[in-house]
């Protein structure tokens, strides 16, 4: 949990608006099969990350997603049999049959890898720019106990990490330090003890008999409206006007103009809310 409230439009928007905006970006990445549009979305999320002052973290997500993307391209090229344009023959692969690398399988793997990159970028952006407490608070009316459990659990993670560091430090002071397994065992035992304490505390404070809380009325801010509208526009564009692109059996691209216009429209729709700088202070 590394959320830090910053002075940006995305941080200023309520969590439901920010989640809807992130979900719309993911939806757009999944509904289109045009690589130009997906690549544009990947760049858009990087720009959005920079505009939300978490650009470095979003860029760092590429360190994890790029190797996975390469793996997807390679595996798809080896496994898919649907393409017709053979670019390399790897002979008989035993149980895998004839290993022919086709241009179509490489292109499809590349597009799917781009989608993965977008999803990971959006996930990192969401974790860095959406207040987790607010998300959990908004879940109280849906399922109070689940929201409470999630809140307590997320608070326990850094506590347990701190425990493990302390125990590790103490262990290193001994003449014969134990292994990591000992630390894991100690931290697990601590976690169970703590969970009992937390459960007892919650019961004493009357959380067990808590009712569904009332809705907290809060007026929509200009940023809420901007991100909700952006999300709706992204969803509408990607669902109602998808750029056609088929990979198998041969690559058939739809209208290039359509794809360029759609990519531009999606980029505009996604980034416009960030131009609103008023009222972004904490």
């Amino acid at each position: 949990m590394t959320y830090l409230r910053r002075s940006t439009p995305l941080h200023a928007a309520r969590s439901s608006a920010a989640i809807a905006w992130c979900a719309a970006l993911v939806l757009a990445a999944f509904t289109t099969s045009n690589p130009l549009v997906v690549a544009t979305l990947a760049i858009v999320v990087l720009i959005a990350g920079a505009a939300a002052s978490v650009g470095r973290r979003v860029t760092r997500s590429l360190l994890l997603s790029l190797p996975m993307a390469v793996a997807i391209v390679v595996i798809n090229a080896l496994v898919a049999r649907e393409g017709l344009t053979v670019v390399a023959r790897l002979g008989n692969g035993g149980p895998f049959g004839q290993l022919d690398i086709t241009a179509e399988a490489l292109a499809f793997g590349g597009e799917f890898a781009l989608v993965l990159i977008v999803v990971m970028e959006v996930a990192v952006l969401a974790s860095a720019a959406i207040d987790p407490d607010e998300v959990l608070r908004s879940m109280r009316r849906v399922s109070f106990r689940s929201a409470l459990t999630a809140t307590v659990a997320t608070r326990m993670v850094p506590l347990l990490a701190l425990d493990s560091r302390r125990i590790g430090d103490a262990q290193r002071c001994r003449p014969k330090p134990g292994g990591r397994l000992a630390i894991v065992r100690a931290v697990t035992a601590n976690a169970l003890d703590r969970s009992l304490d937390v459960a007892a505390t919650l019961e004493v404070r009357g959380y067990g008999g808590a009712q569904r809380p009332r809705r907290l009325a809060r007026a929509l801010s200009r940023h809420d409206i901007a991100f909700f509208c952006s999300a709706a526009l992204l969803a509408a564009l990607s669902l109602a006007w998808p750029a056609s692109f088929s990979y198998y059996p041969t690559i058939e691209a739809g209208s290039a103009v359509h794809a360029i216009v759609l990519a531009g429209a999606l980029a505009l729709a996604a980034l416009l809310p960030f131009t609103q700088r008023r009222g972004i202070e904490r």
Partner: protein
Amino acid sequence: MRRTRTIRASVAVCVAALALALAGCGLGAGTAPGHVSLLVTRGFGAQTLISNPAPKIDGADTVIRMLERNAKVTTAFGGGFVQSISKISGGGGSAWFYYVNGVQAGRGASSTRLHDGDHVWWDFHDWSQADSIPAVVGSFPEPFVDGYGGKRLPLRIECTQPSRKTCSTVEGVFSQMKILASLGCLLCSAANQSLRVVVGPLDTLTSDPAAEQLTGPPARSGVYARFTDRGRRLELLNQDGHVVTTAGAGAGLIAATRFHGQPPVWYVTGTDPAGVSAAVQAFNTQTLDGHFAVAVVADAAIPLPDAER
């Protein structure tokens, strides 16, 4: 020391490259095989959907890739399984099966490479009675011309009554096609890596375990006909496995099957010598073309499974 290492590394790279080349690896689509033909049918060859004597091929295509170039195909499982051809989808006990040179391939279509002269036959049929039909006669004169799996096999005609005219007639059919065949008695050859054409009444084939399959259901032989009453009767079956016609004296059968993974064996047989003669008369390309097996009853060739219900 460094020079020795460099030489070793170079040799290793050369050996690896040579191994890859020998394994059929390479850049690009490779060399296209010649004289390949494509047939797409349904109902055991009853209805022809596509008959293309010169289909489009690009490089060292697999069977499925050639099909995709020449027909509207949908696939499943990453392109390894044909779901539909020409909008005819599998399901409900029917599916697409393929035969190369009249032999059902033991591997998926995405694993089977095409070779010169291959006759690829896709058929959509009911598999409730026989989930595997190991060999069919409808690609004649294949597999005798180009073999199967890219390998040509010698042909051996085995006659149970060598002195009869039927044996020489069958030999004549092959010699007209310039296919070399050796004549011999039933199972006289020690080598079992040859294509066999067995000619003779079924009651003289009792020592041949592959022929014994013809007395069983289609699930055993892959043939929608069976001999009963010690080979004196021939029952013609429909695709549901029901007996449609029972023929007695003078009935013949031309069918192909396999026994325990051995090369295909063809039978030109009948209920008696007259039945064998009738089958021999029908042993030609025109009669066999596009059929899984053919029965001859009262001088009429009946494709199997029998379409009558």
